């Protein structure tokens, strides 16, 4: 291939004088390999993914704290992100006297995800079916997005309040937002910790010592 035949007079009898000009491509290959390695190391093949986050505006002065946090108790789940990748949660309104109303769990599939899926089982089922349809190519991507949005916005969906403590990390926040996507929860908000929440967490860590103290003071 890399040779050019010169001469070669076929018409005459006797051996035709053949001169072959061969180009050695080995250095060329070496150089190319080098360049390829360079490009492989210097480039990002996959673009990073992003997660869209929409926060409420701060212009809600006429709303009081209580109004902001007003959600139907039966549908509300409050998730508190604690230190060392711990997660605490309670449903509806917390019972400040009973320290066991706050449950502790973690980010494993058996942890907070199980809790959220159990609470939101209908929407999860619907989303599963929808995804199946998408993979079977029965519906287009646009239809999928549209229907997914409808399911998420459905009225019987759960509302999750995410309260990250100062001890939590950015990964915890992304993990919990991820769980929202996995568990098809449409309505969620990142809310600041309140004194009541701090009390609950501390009370749980001390297994009810704070409630006992409070009771002792009353008597």
């Amino acid at each position: 291939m890399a040779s050019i035949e010169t001469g070669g007079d076929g018409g005459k009898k006797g051996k035709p004088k053949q001169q072959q000009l061969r180009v050695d491509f080995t250095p060329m290959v070496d150089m190319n390999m080098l360049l390829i390695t360079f490009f492989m190391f210097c480039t990002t093949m996959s673009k990073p993914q992003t997660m869209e986050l929409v926060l409420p505006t701060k212009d809600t002065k006429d709303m009081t704290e209580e109004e902001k946090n007003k959600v139907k108790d039966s549908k509300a789940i409050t998730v508190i992100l604690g230190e060392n990748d711990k997660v605490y949660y309670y449903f509806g309104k917390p019972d400040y006297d009973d320290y066991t109303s706050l449950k502790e769990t973690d980010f494993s599939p058996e942890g907070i995800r199980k809790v959220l899926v159990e609470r939101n089982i209908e929407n999860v089922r619907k989303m599963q079916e929808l995804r199946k349809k998408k993979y079977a190519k029965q519906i287009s991507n646009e239809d999928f997005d549209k229907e997914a949005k409808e399911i998420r916005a459905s009225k019987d969906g759960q509302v999750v309040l995410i309260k990250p403590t100062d001890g939590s990390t950015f990964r915890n926040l992304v993990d919990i937002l991820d769980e929202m996507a996995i568990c098809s929860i449409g309505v969620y908000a990142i809310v600041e910790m309140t004194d009541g929440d701090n009390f609950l967490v501390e009370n749980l860590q001390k297994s009810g010592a704070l409630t006992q103290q409070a009771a002792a003071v009353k008597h």
Partner: protein
Amino acid sequence: MSKVKTKKHSVWIDMTAMSDVTVLLLTFFMLTSTFIPKEPVQVITPQSVSEIKIPEANILTVLVTPKGQIFLNLDRPSDKREVLELIGKDYGITFTNNQIASFINQTTIGVPVASLPKFLDLSMDEQDDVLKTGGIPIDSTNNQFKRWVEHARDVNENLTIAVKADQETPYPLVRQVMSTLQDIKENRFNLVTNLKGMPEGF
């Protein structure tokens, strides 16, 4: 001893095909590659199942390191020039042409405005060293980060803000960035993440 002449067989491997392949690969890599932007501190982003891709252009990347340093990265050189001029006006600093050129060459914005002219007079290597310990102030009394983002948004309306924070960044630092963005009514922004597969059964 009798000499036995052995016929020398020269093994000639034709490298042309090989060369073809490598050139092809090379072209592929050259065309698909986007260079990793130089970042003063390496940041490991958390993983997520979100599959939204980051837009190609018009991005303002906010880099948050675990220690709480904040760096900005604007992708369009023309925007950078205008933003620098606006910032200079705010703080009463005029930049020389050399300093502007240096600012455009340097991918990261990451020193307090007061020390910016001095910083821009340094050579590229020295600048990179300084950046490692730098960071844009975000305290409530001196929120220069807010100014930068505001001006970047004034210059380019289609700007997408991407927050790229390390997974170990404590939440209070992230909250500070997010609440600053909320203050200037940038309620919609992106968190840069790595792709992780959807768990089984969902």
